[in-house]
């Protein structure tokens, strides 16, 4: 009889196994790094999977230009400390090159625009596998996706044509032009991620913890950061609050939550008490339609 493991060990073991399968099966993989807690966990897991070797893939950051400065500082420090390769591609360059319409409105999001940059960088480096930190508990379309998810040459996900995926056997065979998105922490929940961060003592960007910040209080009650990309109006309700970010996306479309959580323990306690889901609390982009994520994924988004 095999010994039963603690669930965090089991989740970690599964993720490391998947990362090593990527290394074993692909010629040119990449790890998509956003500076958020999920991709930070992926880097931590990759250290466990491959050290003392260097990673068999570069970190790739799609920089929307709307990132929190704290995230960029964190990213650069991390890359320096682990001495790995970082590739950065800018959404603004894609907008100029492809003559795309930049995000408009009060909170101009570049969320859908980053898909263009992502597909370009995949083509540029001929990446055959892109590792990402998406989790199935985040959203109902993500809940449906395989761990090895095949994308066609347009980056599209076809939810009705997913390959069967059995046991721990991952089929990474692809045709020319296709690539595979790989999600090693598919089975982790938000709380699992935080418990893992605690156990492993993983350092995070400071905006995950409480700090005082000037925010616009929107009509639907969300706290949006004031910054140069957001159009200020006279009727804006400006508040100074103790907040933290539950997800680290773009400054333009990620809402802060009121919080007094100074430490990882505080955050775990807060999460256990909260009644709002991660994306529901913080993402403006998912409120557009019931199938917003499904549609973005079909178009090549993560």
């Amino acid at each position, binding site marked *: *009889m*095999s*010994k*039963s*493991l*603690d*669930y965090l060990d*089991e*989740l*970690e*073991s599964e993720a*490391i*196994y998947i990362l*090593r*399968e990527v*290394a*074993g099966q692909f010629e040119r993989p990449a790890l998509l790094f956003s500076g958020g807690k999920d991709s930070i966990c992926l880097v931590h897991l990759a250290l*466990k*999977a*491959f*050290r*003392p*070797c*260097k990673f*068999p893939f570069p970190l790739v950051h799609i920089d929307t230009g709307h990132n929190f400065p704290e995230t960029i500082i964190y990213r650069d420090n991390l890359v320096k400390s682990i001495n790995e390769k970082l590739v950065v591609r800018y959404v603004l360059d894609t907008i100029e090159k492809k003559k795309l319409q930049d995000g408009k409105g009060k909170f101009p999001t570049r969320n859908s625009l980053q898909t263009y940059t992502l597909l370009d960088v995949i083509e540029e480096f001929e990446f055959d596998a892109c590792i990402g930190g998406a989790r*199935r*508990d985040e*959203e*109902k*379309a993500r*809940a*449906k996706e*395989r761990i090895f998810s095949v994308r066609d040459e347009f980056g599209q996900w076809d*939810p*009705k044509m*997913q*390959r*069967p*995926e*059995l*046991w*721990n*056997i991952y*089929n990474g*065979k*692809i*045709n020319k032009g296709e690539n595979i998105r790989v999600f090693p922490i*598919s*089975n982790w*929940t938000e*709380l699992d991620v935080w418990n893992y961060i605690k156990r492993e003592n993983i350092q995070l960007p400071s905006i995950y913890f409480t700090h005082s910040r000037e925010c616009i209080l929107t009509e639907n009650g969300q706290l949006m950061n004031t910054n140069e990309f957001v159009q200020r109006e006279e009727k804006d309700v400006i508040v100074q609050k103790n907040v933290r970010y539950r997800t680290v996306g773009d400054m333009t479309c990620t809402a802060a939550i009121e919080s007094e959580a100074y430490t990882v323990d505080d955050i775990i306690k807060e999460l256990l008490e*909260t*009644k*709002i*889901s991660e994306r*529901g*609390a913080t993402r403006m982009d998912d409120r557009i339609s*019931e*199938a917003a994520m*499904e549609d973005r994924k079909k178009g090549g988004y993560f």
Partner: protein
Amino acid sequence: MMQLLRFFTAGNVDDGKSTLIGRLLYDSNSISTDIIETLTRQSKTTGTNTEIDLALLTDGLRAEREQGITIDVAYKYFSTDKRKFIIADTPGHIQYTRNMFTGASNANLAIILVDARNGITDQTKRHSIISAILGMPHVLVCINKMDLVDYSEEKYKQIESDYLTFAKQLNLKDISFIPASALAGDNVVTKSDKMSWYKGKPLLEFLETIEIVEAKQTDVSRFQVQYVIRPQTDDLHDYRGFAGRVVSGSYQKGQKVTVLPSGIETTIDKIEVNQQEVDLAETNTPVVLHLKDDVDISRGNSIVPTEHLPKTEKEVTATICWMDNATYIPGQKILLQQNSFRTKAVVKEVISKIDIHSFSQLESDGAMKLNDICKVLIKTAEPISFDSYADNRNSGSFILINENTNNTIAAGTID
């Protein structure tokens, strides 16, 4: 320490499977308020007449919501004070059997839903046979919609006895029954006061307390190389480690091992876990093994204890489920993948076809169509090291891949 239970649910299209999961999540306070708001809004436009259509929680694709059916497996996560759960909500429709296999393959428990009005159906039998083929350690038959049969004990008893009669031939290890109404919430999270004749636990308590038996039942140590770690730096010039996971049993420093398929014997020199040396690595641990001798080892090779060798052959007899829309043409070359090992292969003979309604073996004409379950003889180009699936879920399972389309076309369990 908190344990993780992975289970899957299967049932007919209208057995209320997604509703049951919705109920489990809803009544155990695992759903956030913003999701409930969205659901309430959705239920008004697409859902059924109930206040909140709980099925909408798991039917995550637009096409599923439109048609009111589950097409692909959805994963849901919840935990109580006692346990963490991963649910694979799998489609019941025969057309999507391959997706059901996907959800079921990593589970330790099957919940098979039966509509109390209809009793055992062809689908119930098919789902049970799939559970048997996958060696599911626990099967729970949830007799749902009891509210529509006036909570009749007689009806429940009848279905229970019908099921046990049918299941006799399947060799399922552990079968339990719960009468419930997912829609009304009877015996899901709280014990129903309408079925006082039922002395067992409600579903959630059952799931929290069942002693989990792992599907791999062996203590025999198995390890397959996923990736060779060779830093090739000046200070680590001679470092050559074999990265992989201890899939069963354990490995010890100094242990005598054999590398397969080459058959070369050597000794474990060093075991590393996260760059720390350890003397012993238990099941499921991701490790890097170092061997005394400088032997030629690559991805997909097995490192196993010399006194407990798996079989290493170029032919295997297996039960496979055909998952491709295209029919298998006898003689067609394919790829076989067993964890990290991949080889060219061919199905030499389709020995028999299993009737998925009676579990009896039928004669085969040699072709395999979508959802056929067949006993086959496979010949491989490279020798494969394996155990029987009944002994080891990990080293006894494989998938078949179409070399041309690269699709996964079958799942197999070795006899």
